């Protein structure tokens, strides 16, 4: 197992007391697996990524039974150990690629910074030459063929898709074992999104790189995704094999998201009303007791004020007292 997260709870102090923004989250990623984390905005999915990378400041209280990457405990790393893992074995790309690139550096300069010195040999000039060669290699690897033009460009001259490719290039400079992609395509037009997804799928196939893809929309996930985890308001609702989960959702939240998701609308008559969850996502100050979907759930019953445990059936996991589509085991 590459990444093993058990019962991760992240809390923040607010004027009204401590709030569990993320509650007992489980997430396991195997070697060479594409795992997609789906949740609406504010559900805490980026928080998981930040906790893995160690980006969270001290005002967040992180607790976990396990937060392991291979044999390293990510919660108790020395600064030196962290430097050897974060950015090398675990890399991350972000939503708004342009704002994560340094506006004052050319693409060549930024990518040269991403090349580790220990990989190079020889004297100063030889190393400089190697570094530049590596940058050109990286650009070719992300599908940018006209590298001479690109090398001297500044980030503001790039299109969104090209900027994201540069970010992928710098993320894969050390052949990471795990790439965390935090909504890399959510602001892109569909054609560019497919391009980026194809690129990621290619690295996954060629180098066996695991990918944790974070996405807002079930209709816009990579089709190579093997496993899905649905998260709502800081609680994991359901996880499992992509196809099984989409065909037979056990959790009402998955079902509701599937119904509202756009790719299923093609089967509906045009201009018909769409079934959707009523109401809005709860704010962190007013979290419902028990299952946080409760007030919006069509199947909710009194028992739902107790937090449901995370049940496992074969390789599917779900947190619901009244799961759907389970008749075959009855």
């Amino acid at each position, binding site marked *: 197992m590459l990444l093993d997260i058990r019962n991760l709870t992240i809390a923040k102090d607010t004027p009204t007391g401590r709030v569990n923004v993320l509650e007992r989250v489980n997430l396991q990623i195997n070697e060479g697996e594409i795992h997609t984390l789906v949740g*609406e905005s504010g559900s805490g999915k980026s928080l998981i990524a930040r906790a893995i990378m160690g980006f969270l400041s001290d005002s967040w209280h992180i607790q976990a039974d396990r937060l392991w990457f291979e044999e390293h405990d990510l919660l108790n790393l020395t600064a030196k150990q962290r430097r050897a893992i974060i950015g090398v074995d675990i890399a991350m790309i972000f939503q708004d690629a342009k704002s994560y690139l340094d506006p004052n550096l050319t693409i060549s300069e930024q990518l040269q910074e991403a090349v580790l010195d220990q990989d190079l040999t020889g004297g100063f000039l030889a190393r400089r030459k190697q570094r530049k060669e590596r940058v050109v290699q990286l650009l070719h690897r992300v599908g940018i063929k006209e590298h001479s033009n690109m090398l001297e460009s500044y980030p503001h001259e790039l299109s*969104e898709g090209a900027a994201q490719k540069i970010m992928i290039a710098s993320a894969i400079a050390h052949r990471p074992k795990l790439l965390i992609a935090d909504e890399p395509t959510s602001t892109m*037009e569909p054609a560019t999104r497919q391009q980026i997804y194809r690129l990621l799928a290619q690295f996954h196939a060629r180098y066996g790189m695991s990918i944790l893809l974070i996405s807002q929309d079930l209709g*816009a996930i990579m*089709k190579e995704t093997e496993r899905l985890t649905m998260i709502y308001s800081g609680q994991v609702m359901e996880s499992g094999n992509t196809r099984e989960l989409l065909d037979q959702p056990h959790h009402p939240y998955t079902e509701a998201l599937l119904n509202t998701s756009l790719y299923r609308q093609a089967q509906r008559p*045009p201009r018909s009303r*769409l*079934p959707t969850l009523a109401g*809005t996502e709860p704010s962190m100050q007013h979290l419902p007791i028990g299952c946080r979907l409760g007030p919006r759930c069509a199947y909710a019953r009194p028992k739902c004020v107790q937090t449901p445990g995370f049940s496992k059936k074969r390789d599917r996991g779900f947190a619901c007292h009244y799961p759907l589509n389970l008749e075959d085991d009855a």
Partner: protein
Amino acid sequence: MKPLLEVRDLAKTYIQRSGLLKRKKIEALKPTSFNVEAGKTLAIMGANGSGKSTLAGLISGAIQPTRGEIILNGQRLQADNYRQRAQHIRMVFQDAEASLNPHLTIGDQLEEPLKFNTGLNHNQRRERVIHTLQQVGLLAEHMVFYPHMMSTGQKQRVSIARAIILNPQLLVADEALATLDSSVRAQIINLLLDLQSDLKMSYVFISQSPEIVRHLADDVIIMQDGEILEHGHVDDIFNAPEHRYTQSLLLSELNLS
């Protein structure tokens, strides 16, 4: 039937200066003509930089055209007469967070268009604001809220309320659904459909998502590089796209099912 909105040879050219004397002409929108029928929805699709937002800006009056004219109900719209235009053509933007004023309560924001465009007194304005809030599925209590106290979906509802409060004939929505979560997006789609059947408004709907367009629109325009590539009924274009570009645009939807 006479169309609600006629667009004739509308064009926009930007002049970019590069250097002391060099000037480059950028044709953001080449001469374009089309009609929008009353109570119908026209969708505009295209890649980034294809001129669809320029077109939306021109229709709503945010951008001055270089050439051409826009005719609403047989009456020619003057480029700088905002009062004439603001009552009939309203706009909803992509980023609800940024399009609301953080310093004003929701009630004050909704009252503003009424102050400038109608002769209603204070009490009548308040009634109208409450009525409009209820139309978009919010409560009268939301009048005293500030934008930061609301969720994204609620803010988009307020933007829609601000757009419909003057009973416009045409609503221009520029990617109004793009950044919303899928459950909220479905709620807003339902709201737009309900409002259209209640108020008999026309929509000009700019979107990149083939699924939303297929669900909402009657007619669709496909744009590329400032030109109209295809224009026709949604079913015709989606079932038999002529241009390769249109095919690639429509096929980009994921086939998970």
